[in-house]
């Protein structure tokens, strides 16, 4: 049985700042633990920067072979705070991903751009990835994050830890802290720290930018627009609810538009009608059909 603690880590928040595109840094006094956002250089094309020479800062007493996971309470603005775990194989998921579309993290907007992989600018980003602790619709573990943050930034670091734990059955202390400027509803980025317990094979401390190349974001609200240097028409708002109809093939894990030719030949046993958000399907591991391109 998984053991979940409630965690309280104070995050100092001062001032609100509109950040343009992938820029960050500046004179902010925002901090989480020993990390100061003002130390982070502006985004320069790499999804992350190394902090403190990659050395994380975990308490000595937490280096244990007992797995645990903690998700900090939402702050007074409803924002996620820190998620912290000692990842072991016993925490890893044993069931398929569930739906997380019902969670609306602070600053959530459903908006599409053709220049974004999968089109949707924002994903519900797990602080501690599903592959590590199997958390689904836990509002204390989901933030509004760009596709770039999710796939290019955080996922490689999650993969590194997940595959190490699966291979060795060792433990990894793992902490993810969203970093906000003042009262902004969208995090400027996340700090990711990891350290293996039984050896020194996993060790990192990085800041990952919550940005999307070619898109500018108002981190106070989550509103976004195309950067002047990018070439694309205005963003497309989805339906008011962000929901659309799709047909899922539960065997091939593809999703289709209802009028797709692939739906006609689909086995009834594998067919499932779905109304909801597209990115929720992507987060569940479904891929868009290559014919109808939903």
């Amino acid at each position, binding site marked *: 049985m998984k053991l979940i603690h409630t965690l309280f880590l104070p995050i100092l928040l001062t001032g609100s700042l509109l950040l343009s595109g992938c820029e960050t840094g500046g004179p902010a006094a925002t901090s989480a633990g020993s990390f100061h956002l003002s130390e982070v250089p502006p985004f320069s094309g790499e999804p*992350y920067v*190394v902090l403190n020479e*990659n050395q994380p800062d975990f308490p000595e007493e937490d280096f244990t072979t007992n797995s645990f996971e903690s998700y900090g309470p939402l702050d007074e603005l409803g924002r996620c705070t820190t998620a912290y775990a000692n990842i072991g194989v016993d925490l890893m998921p044993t069931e398929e991903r569930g739906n997380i579309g019902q969670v609306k993290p602070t600053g959530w907007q459903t908006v599409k751009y053709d220049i974004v992989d999968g089109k949707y600018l924002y994903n519900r980003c797990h602080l501690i990835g599903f592959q590590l602790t199997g958390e689904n619709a836990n509002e204390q573990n989901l933030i509004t994050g760009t596709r770039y943050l999710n796939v290019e930034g955080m*996922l*490689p*670091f999650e*993969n*590194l830890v997940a*595959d*190490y734990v*699966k*291979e*060795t059955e060792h433990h990894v202390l793992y902490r993810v802290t969203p970093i906000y400027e003042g009262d902004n509803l969208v995090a400027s980025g996340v700090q990711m720290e990891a350290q293996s317990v039984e050896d*020194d*094979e*996993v*060790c*990192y401390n*990085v800041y990952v930018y919550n940005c999307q190349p070619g898109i500018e974001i108002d981190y106070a609200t989550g509103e976004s627009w195309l950067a002047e240097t990018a070439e694309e028409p205005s963003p497309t708002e989805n339906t008011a609810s962000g929901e659309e109809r799709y047909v899922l093939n539960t065997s091939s894990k593809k999703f289709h538009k209802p009028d797709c030719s692939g739906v006609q030949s689909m086995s009834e046993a594998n067919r499932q009608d779905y109304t909801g958000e597209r990115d929720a399907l992507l987060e569940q591991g479904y891929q868009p059909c290559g014919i109808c391109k939903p």
Partner: protein
Amino acid sequence: MHVIVCLDDRGGMLFHQRRQSRDRAVQSDILQMCRGEVLWMNRYSQALFSDAEGNAIRTAEDFLEQAGAGEYCFVETCASLRPYEKNIEHLILYRWNRHYPSDARLDLDPAAEGWRQIGCTEFPGHSHERITKEVYTR
């Protein structure tokens, strides 16, 4: 010499001076491939093969300098193979088919540099869904 390297989807080998990943199925395949032959590596890598029996594992920090013709070299911590390129008879790549962070990437791209692929097999790993093994020669 025959050089063996593990790579992620971006050609990465290391992050923060540590291997990106490992898989006992890869270690087993390497030992089987090198059975009866000399297999060189450094001390960092030797920890992965501590229970290897029947293999002639030799350990040295400068093993790429010492390895002779026909001998195997398992390379984890040296991403710069260019200085040894003329001595490489075969380049054997194990691809994790995963994206990991990397700050050291292999400086050879055999497919783009005219090497000839003479083998490609896939097998399931212990902790990786699918591992691709590619063998290149000049």
